């Protein structure tokens, strides 16, 4: 059966290999450039003592390659559409399942070999693309400290492998249930986007309980490469202050996220400022008044140390979903009359 699978997919495999080789060459060439640009920028800013604002002034790489790297977000969906969805649906549509399932090879073995090799191929492609992107983005991650942020997290590490396996499994299952290729492709595309969005928007930030750190109003808190979920100010009772959506008045502090508008302070602190802009005296009066009321800044975040734990959990979720989908496919195919 492995030989049959290879004969059926050698054209696709050649095309995929050629595309991967081209992508690898591009990433390697530009990646070396990015690394040397990063190295020389570090050397120059160390000499000029200006490394503090490097993140605002330095742009690594080119927009075109950077955009291509973001496009790898779509690789799993493409695998699901082109490899997964037709696997069974096209056999049904072309009537070739009647031939394939009346040979000496049992239907179960036929399905095991085909799905096994395709899922392996999907995992390999997802893994290679992710490895290249992860390596290419190394300097940019160091510069922007945003590897944990949504969008970056999704194209690096091991999660792309989980997405690829899930997308192909979804395609296979959709094809087994719908028995037609084009509807299966549509369902794969919509289902993949929907599941990714649900996991990202509603689940990922809750994989582990978020950490909240407090800091003085005029201070700040550097969480490094953490994934910041929210920031603001709390009163003495620990409840977040309700800040106006926008303000033109004077603000205190303002390091993580937004400053603390004077209009959000208790009445007596506002009275200490009066109307108009701060003077040094009124600024310190307002600051000590706010501190006396126990007002502190807070940041809620997932620490950078949890990056690989989150990668593992997210990959696990998608691999489990893929396993469930495969179980459905086997049940459907084994039950169906040839």
């Amino acid at each position, binding site marked *: 059966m492995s030989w049959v699978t290879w004969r059926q997919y050698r054209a696709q495999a050649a095309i995929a290999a050629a595309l991967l080789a081209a992508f690898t060459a591009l990433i390697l060439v530009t990646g070396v450039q990015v690394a040397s640009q990063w190295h020389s*920028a570090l050397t*120059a*800013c160390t*000499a*000029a*003592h*200006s*490394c*503090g*604002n*490097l993140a*605002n*002034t*330095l742009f690594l790489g080119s*927009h*075109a390659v950077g*955009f*291509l790297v973001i*496009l790898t977000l779509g690789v799993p969906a*493409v695998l699901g*559409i*082109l490899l997964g969805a*037709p696997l069974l649906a*096209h056999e049904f*549509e*072309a009537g070739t399942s009647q031939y394939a399932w009346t040979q000496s090879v049992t239907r179960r073995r036929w399905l095991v070999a085909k799905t096994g090799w395709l899922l392996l191929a999907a995992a390999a492609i997802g893994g290679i693309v992710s490895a290249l992107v992860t390596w290419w983005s190394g300097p940019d991650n160091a510069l922007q400290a945003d590897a944990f942020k949504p969008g970056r997290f999704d194209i690096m590490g091991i999660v792309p492998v989980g997405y690829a396996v899930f997308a192909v499994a979804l395609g296979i299952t959709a094809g087994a249930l719908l028995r037609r*290729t*084009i509807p299966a*492709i*549509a369902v794969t*595309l919509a289902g993949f986007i929907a599941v990714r*969005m649900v996991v990202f*928007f509603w689940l990922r930030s809750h994989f582990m309980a978020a950490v909240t750190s407090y800091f003085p109003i005029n201070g700040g808190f550097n969480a490094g490469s953490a994934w910041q979920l929210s920031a603001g100010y709390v009163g003495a009772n620990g409840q977040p202050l309700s800040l*106006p*959506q*926008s*303000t*033109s008045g004077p603000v205190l502090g303002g390091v993580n*996220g*937004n*400053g603390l508008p004077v209009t959000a302070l208790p009445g007596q602190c506002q009275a200490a400022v009066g109307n108009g802009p701060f003077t040094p005296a009124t600024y310190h009066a307002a600051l000590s008044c706010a501190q006396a009321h126990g007002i502190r800044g807070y940041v809620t975040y997932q620490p950078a140390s949890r990056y690989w734990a989150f990668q593992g959990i997210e990959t696990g979720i998608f691999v489990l979903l893929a396993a469930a989908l495969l179980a459905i496919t086997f049940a459907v195919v084994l039950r169906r009359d040839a």
Partner: protein
Amino acid sequence: MTWVVWRQYRTQGAIAAVLLAALAAAVLVDGFQIASHWHSILVACAGNKACLQQQPTLVNGVVSDLPYLCLIVPVVLGMLWGAPLVAHELESRTSDFAWSQSVTRTHWLAVKTGWLLLAAAACGGLVSALTTWWSGPVNAMTGGAFAPGQFDTQGVVPVGYAVFAMALGIAAGAVARRSLPAIAVVLGGFIGVRLLISGLLRPHYMAAVTTYYHLTTGSFTPPGQAWVFSQGAVSSTGVVVASGWGDLYPALQPVCQRLIGSAPASGKSGSMSAVFSCMQAHGWRGFATYQPAYRYWPFQGIETGIYLLLAAALVAVTFAIVRRRDAL
């Protein structure tokens, strides 16, 4: 023929209508919230530019991905409706039936492609109209409507993309005669053409404008929603340093280098003004290269025109192939 097209596509049409209605509802709800948020910021800031820049971003949550969705709608339409149009008829041999009726093959193809191209234009236009309206406050706040990414999801260009993707799908299906390879071609071809045109051609639809200014009189920002290519300073010998001043130090004359060395780290305006007057004295000029904001609609028109022409060429190829091919 129109009735046949309607019968064949009514399920797809109904699904598309339901999805578009759901999208419109989500966008309208979110859009009104953003608009009222933006209104309260405008009232609070009362024209103070620094205050506007300090405000947090307007959009977040699920609907903030709307522009990305807008980017993929054309290619999805081309893959699911365009590619199978001819290819699936040939694959399932229904072309034998369809092309041996009293309706001529040209008439059959003209009506089918006509309605599908119209549907693609309508879907693209509707999604674009929603995105354009929804993005209004964000454009006003960031001035980025002309920038790559935003330009591609607003105005009339999404209509051009959708028509092109549909035509590409139909032509690929007619050439490949099989749905799946045609779908792969649509996916690769659409992304490739879009990247080529937006990366290589779009910046040159019209010659970019470069404005020079005195470094000592402060910085120059192109007014309105301009598309800025580069900003920074250029020396009398043609050495260019991009704004942000990351590479400034090695490019400067030693006299001016010393001024940076003595300044406390990074570009505080107070410390940089001495450096700028030194640069001014040594023949440096500030510059900004950009496409001015008033060219937004000409650029939208040119880009849409390019894609419509490409679509027309692809439709012509399809007609040539289908008319030449034997029915059996």
